[in-house]
């Protein structure tokens, strides 16, 4: 040991006053978080593993118990060799609701994935670039939406898809989603904002990227249904919810997006609105992942006051009575094969849609079971995961085909893609049925 190991000043008393210490600075970044104490809750029952749709079809993935509490417990502060299999986790988060003992599994996966990207994946690798691209769909979508017809045309070209597979590792098996000719936000502005004003009943709508750029009809359905119940709707500024970024370990991107969202949504709360989302992954992200990974001012309040769109009505309105008077005639709304997205399951919402639709005369929704659709956001878009993704989805496809219905129903945009891809069915969002039942098919703008 050298002399330099000795401090310059033996007294060292001058340090003592400078100890105003903010704990937040101890864990500056999510990927540097120490989650070892989370392993305290694990009693090794493996219930998480039995719920993992990836481990069931691919034994390269060692399951959430290893990936979460075991890997964390084996870790020393300066170890940075997160096992590469963490990238095989699809972030469906089923392990969270499985664990009978409250181990923060998905938080552990998210953090480990962030660390893996940080420490072990080259910034210049094809995989990194591709993941970054998929994670940041929100950044690309506006471009495509500006020239939707060109984008749809170009993306549909098989050469483009083939190039996607070769150069970026995005599977050519899937058709890229169409972009709407008019985004939801454009429609909203065009429409002149809210049609209902209310002091007492206000909501701030977090529409997310997909309902804005690809399926504005879902967002419009939400507007019409909520206005039917007399709510004044605000559409705050918003960034991507972060779901695809968490799944790809892009925690810095997610942090930036979350910071914007929390600030905007907290402001809406201040104004007296509650927050509702129509996409189950967006609501999951704001409710669970934000408070687990970030601590911006207002994160907890925003999380605690964010609701799934259907859940909110169910709790705050007498939805059942309202629907009891409604009926839907015709084949179009006859029967649905309903898939509860994993991220809805995680919020305790898996039984909700079937429960609610039961009240509408003429509509049947049959739950096709608790299996995962397999696409898990961007996961199934990666060429190397395509096969796994379809294996996971196989049970759902079979159950859909076994059901009476010839069309599908869900609340998650990527589950919807997978359902359509696997069965060729048309897939509807639950809010669209509510819109038809309460407002009528061609709900006035």
């Amino acid at each position, binding site marked *: 040991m050298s002399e330099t190991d000795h*401090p310059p000043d033996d007294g060292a008393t001058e*340090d003592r006053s400078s100890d105003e210490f903010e704990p937040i600075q101890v864990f500056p970044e999510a990927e540097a978080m120490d989650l070892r*104490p989370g*392993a305290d809750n694990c009693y090794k029952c493996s219930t998480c593993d039995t719920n993992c749709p990836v481990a069931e079809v691919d034994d390269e993935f060692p399951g959430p118990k290893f990936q979460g509490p075991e890997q964390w417990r084996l870790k*020393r502060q300066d170890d940075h*060799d997160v096992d590469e299999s963490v990238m095989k986790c699809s972030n469906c988060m089923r392990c969270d609701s499985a664990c009978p*003992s409250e181990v923060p599994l998905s938080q552990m996966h998210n953090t480990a994935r962030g660390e893996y990207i940080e420490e072990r994946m080259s910034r210049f690798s094809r995989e990194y670039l591709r993941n970054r691209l998929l994670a940041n769909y929100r950044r690309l979508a506006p471009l495509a939406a500006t020239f939707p017809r060109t984008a749809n045309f170009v993306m549909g070209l098989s050469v483009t898809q083939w190039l996607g597979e070769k150069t970026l590792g995005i599977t050519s098996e899937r058709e890229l989603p169409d972009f709407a000719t008019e985004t939801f936000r454009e429609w909203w502005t065009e429409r002149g904002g809210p049609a209902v004003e209310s002091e007492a009943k206000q909501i701030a709508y977090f529409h997310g990227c997909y309902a804005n750029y690809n399926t504005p009809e879902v967002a419009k359905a939400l507007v019409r249904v909520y206005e039917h119940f007399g709510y004044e709707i605000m559409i705050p500024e918003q960034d991507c919810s972060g779901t695809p970024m968490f799944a790809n370990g892009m925690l810095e991107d997610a942090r930036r997006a979350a910071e914007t969202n929390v600030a905007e949504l907290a402001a809406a709360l201040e104004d007296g609105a509650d927050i509702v989302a129509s996409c189950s992954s967006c609501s999951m992200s704001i409710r669970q992942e934000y408070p687990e990974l970030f601590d911006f001012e207002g994160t907890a309040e925003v999380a605690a006051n964010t609701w799934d769109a259907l859940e909110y009505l169910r709790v705050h309105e007498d939805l059942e009575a309202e629907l009891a008077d409604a009926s839907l005639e015709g084949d179009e709304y006859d029967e649905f094969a309903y898939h509860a997205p994993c991220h809805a399951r995680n919020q305790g919402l898996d039984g909700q849609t079937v429960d609610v639709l039961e009240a509408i005369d003429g509509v049947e929704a049959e739950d096709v079971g608790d299996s995962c659709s397999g696409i898990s956001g961007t996961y199934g878009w990666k060429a190397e995961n395509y096969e796994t993704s379809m294996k996971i989805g196989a049970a759902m496809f079979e159950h859909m085909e076994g059901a009476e219905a010839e069309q599908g129903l869900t609340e998650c945009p990527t589950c919807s893609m997978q359902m359509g891809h696997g069965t060729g069915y048309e897939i509807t969002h639950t809010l669209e049925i509510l819109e038809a039942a309460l407002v009528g098919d061609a709900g006035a703008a």
Partner: protein
Amino acid sequence: MATDTEVLVLGGGSTGCGIARDLAMRGLEVTLVERGNLTDGTTGRMHGLLHSGGRYAVSDQASATECIEENEILRDIAGHCVEETGGLFVQLPDDSDDYFREKLEGCRDCNIPARVLSGREAREIEPYLTPDIERAIEVPDGAVDPFRLCVANAVDAEAHGARIETHAEVIDLLRDGADVYGVDVRHDSGPGKRRHAAPGSTEEITAEYVVNATGAWAGQIAAMADLEVAVRPSKGVMTIMNVRQVDTVINRCRPKGDADIVVPHETTAILGTTDEEVSDPDDYPEAQWEVDQVIDTLADLVPILEEARTIRSFWGVRPLYEPPGTATQDPTDITRDFFLLDHAERDGVSGLSSIVGGKFTTYRAMAEEISDHVCGKLGVDATCATAEEPLPGSENLAVLEDGMDEFGLRSPVARRSKQRLGSRASDVLETDDANPVLCACEGVTRAEVRDAIQQSGTDLNAVRIRTRASMGNCQGGFCSQLLATELHPEYDEATARSALDELFQERWKGQRHALWGEQLSQAMVTYALHATTMNRDRDPAASDGSLEYGAFDDGEVR
């Protein structure tokens, strides 16, 4: 008179194994006998601190100097047993500035590298430290695995021709007039590797010189030859946390006191300790208040400990000794230095020395001094090489760390396995056979378990101390049965079953002191698995009567 061995070492702790290795390396013929498993006495019941000497820097500077010297040697010769964690002496608002300054000066006086950190700097190193912290002194404390270190010494002694007998209890120290010439031992299951069910036997082992390295039990051994060694055994509790809340040794910077240290140990953190004199090192109370006290007191330093999961507690008995007539009242004030009692000088009885006192970190230096003494007695002229020769597993560690081979294992499992096996890793882990993880808590694979069984026979506790299997959060709930399975078919079913029962009961013993919250839930999971699902508690194979199978449902619908 021809003897069975030149030197007979009694006690398979760090001192005994260190002496056996030292003498065997000098070319002497050595036999070591141990009542239970290696480390079963005090060595396996310590907090795993590799002292920098900082703890003695104020009160006992001679010990402090010796510690830092040995600390540096062990990093070299036992790299795979040592984790260079660093240590902090943390000052809280109640702790005196004067003592802090004395500690720092003491470290400097003893050549212990020491650096003052602000509270903020200390918390950047260890985020779970209390925000109240005033400042800290950083020293090169480390963590050491006493099991691995002790076993490595024994293995190397064997490699140099020594005979190591575990489960061989000394039942008589043989004395002929004024000369001690050997012992009678009782082998639990015949000599050699442990084999459950093998019949016990007794053996007389004669030697030119006997070294009584039984620590806290030295008085009992000496008494067998009507000699008196007044050991003052002092117990201390250690509580094992499920995870590492800290990766640095955390000491409270204040004069002697209970519950003032947290040592990161492998996957866990160990809280210590207390200091209370006991009359019998095999029989003393293990009380709730001791556990509560270490948790509550150390939570002042690391608040998260208050609610964190502990997986077990254990007590160790220090082999404290002071020369007759010193009569120190408080055991904390008894010196930690060691004493070599040459019974020829002391009592006029030749052929025997007893070693008492001392501390784990300086085991090698103690062994060297005692070996010099024994060589002098036997007229052997040989020099000590233990400060230079690496222990088995610690050769060429740099090569291992650079090596990317993960032996087909997941990264963290490969990393932990390599840390445990050191330079033996490829010998043990390279296999064409299926190599599933058997202990998922600690990341121990079948290959490593089989290697340990090769070394130690049917004793699964011996497998445990070599591999850490069953030392994680389920405490053997899920893996104990898998470990026992590995004994079969080399050993028969009844042997595998009694080895399992023994390990399972041993794992329960320490868990009793952690039975609340998560560990109580864990205990219930384990109980349900072993009793409900496997019916191990009422196994018809273990009962005398035969079961009338015909009276039960045979599946036929009648």
